């Protein structure tokens, strides 16, 4: 009982983990005590017992003084569930408590209204965390938080308000921390870009030396999946014509290969996805893409933008001839007998939008004719003009 001391304002910010009402404190195995009725509060550092009838009578037991605790469930004869706290010897410089000396090495908390189960669980957790070891080292900050700790125990509306403010502050702290994490991430992304750059440099230098062709291509594919290693951005090239011209150059570089693979033509939305996929970060807007594509002719790029009569924009290799495309599509329709955009798209591995554009182009020159019914829009070889 002598390890208990009179209450003093919090050593650091305390958060009440659990409270139980109608708790008595008993010394050792004694059946009577001066502290019969009170509210027991658990914090990370200590337990606080406050007398129901006398608000000034408050006792604390610091976790550092606790050897171990045990729980005794409520039996038929006892007055409530008990937590038995085995105590360590009195440390030097201990604050004076209500009892100067005691023979017993344990005290009991008796929970007359129950609730000892939960309390016990949290108590054990709090003990295991051993927060006091850390708080003692940071006791310098304790003073500044003194008033704070006091106010958090304040009752009434002002207490609630203060608690809300506390919560707000905490949230702000969390958020700003999260943003700090973001900027760290960005920094790391930059490092990644730098890394990929150095790897490419090294590859270029070591080419043919000790790295096999296979490894080189593998490396390069990794780099590609990382994105373009040096994206053209507005910050480096400003907002004007230069930016769009540089962007057009980048577009040429990125799209030339996929364009060759897919037959030379690609709709603008598809191109947009590819570009931004390749860039990874520093994404461009659709408008930027459109403006950059309009610059393709100016920089004499190997690809060019073409607008179909219906208004669909596509980028295509300069080597692709539209009339040749049309002819091919018409021949394909003749071969199939009857075709819709979907089928053409499948056979040519192009998008349905593009396939439809080709069909319409072939129709415009009179090579094929349409059959527009509830079954959908199909195209046939133009036998009307053929019969001539």
């Amino acid at each position: 009982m002598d390890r208990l001391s009179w209450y003093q304002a919090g050593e650091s910010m305390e958060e009440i983990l659990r409270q139980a009402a109608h708790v008595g404190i008993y010394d050792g195995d004694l059946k009577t005590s001066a502290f019969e009725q009170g509210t027991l509060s658990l914090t990370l550092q200590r337990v606080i017992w406050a007398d129901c009838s006398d608000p000034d009578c408050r006792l604390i037991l610091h976790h550092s003084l606790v050897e171990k605790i045990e729980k005794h469930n409520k039996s038929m004869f006892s007055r409530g569930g008990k937590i038995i706290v085995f105590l360590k010897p009195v440390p030097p410089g201990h604050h004076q408590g209500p009892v100067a000396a005691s023979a017993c090495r344990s005290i009991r908390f008796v929970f007359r209204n129950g609730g000892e189960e939960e309390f016990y669980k949290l108590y054990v957790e709090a003990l295991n965390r051993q927060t006091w070891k850390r708080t003692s080292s940071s006791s310098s900050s304790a003073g500044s938080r003194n008033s704070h700790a006091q106010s958090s125990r304040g009752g009434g509306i002002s207490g609630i308000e203060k608690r809300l403010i506390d919560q707000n502050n905490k949230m702000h702290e969390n958020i700003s921390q999260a943003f700090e994490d973001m900027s760290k991430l960005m920094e790391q992304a930059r490092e990644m870009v730098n890394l990929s750059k150095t790897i490419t440099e090294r590859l270029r230098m070591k080419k043919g030396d000790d790295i096999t062709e296979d490894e080189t291509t593998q490396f390069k594919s990794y780099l590609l999946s990382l994105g373009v290693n040096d994206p053209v951005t507005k910050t480096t090239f400003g907002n004007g014509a230069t930016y769009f011209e540089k962007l057009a150059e980048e577009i040429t570089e990125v799209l030339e290969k996929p364009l060759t693979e897919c037959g030379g033509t690609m709709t603008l939305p598809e191109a947009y996805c590819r570009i931004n996929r390749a860039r990874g970060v520093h994404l461009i807007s659709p408008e930027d893409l459109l403006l950059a594509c309009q610059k393709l002719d100016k920089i004499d790029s190997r690809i060019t933008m073409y607008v179909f009569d219906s208004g669909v924009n596509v980028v295509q290799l300069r080597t692709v001839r539209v009339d040749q495309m049309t002819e091919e599509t018409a021949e394909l329709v003749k071969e199939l007998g009857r075709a819709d955009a979907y089928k053409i798209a499948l056979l040519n591995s192009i998008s349905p939008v593009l396939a439809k554009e080709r069909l319409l182009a072939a129709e415009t020159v009179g090579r094929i004719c349409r059959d527009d019914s509830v079954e959908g829009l199909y195209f046939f070889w133009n036998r009307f003009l053929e019969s001539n």
Partner: protein
Amino acid sequence: MSFIFPWEYDFPPFFTIQPNAATREKQLEAWAQLVLHYCHQNNIYTADITQLAETELFNNRNLNRRLDYNGILTVLDYLEAKNCVEWSDRQKRQCHIHWQSPEQWAEVIHSWARANGFLNSVVTLEDLIDGDDTAQESFHGINRRTLIKALEALQKKGLAAIIEHEGAVAGVKFA
């Protein structure tokens, strides 16, 4: 004798008015011929568009294709431009179909009159349209309006004189 449809009738795009101008011209030409042939074969002089739309002419059940209302209008307007169709109302619900021009009819009627000894005699319109003497003729059951047009053409050539009775055409005297 069942009607023999042209190859276009089994070609699905035939039932979609083509957007390509050159193609459409060919298509409408084919439609025009088909409509006139069909009306000729089935002795259709006056047509109700909604009724006509349901006939096999515009509705190919084998192919599950039909020319929609606007398509039919396009075809008939095309025929109108060629003087083969005359709308009888402004809403374009009914029309007269002239699968032979009045001059062609005039020729047919006059040769019948010549062959059957009706020259220099008066024949009523009813006799021509519905009479026993014309039962085997192609103009049997001809539309009254079409008949008058044909007779007017004959009169112009001096081969017939139209006789009016109480302000309406009643008969004709072949010359």
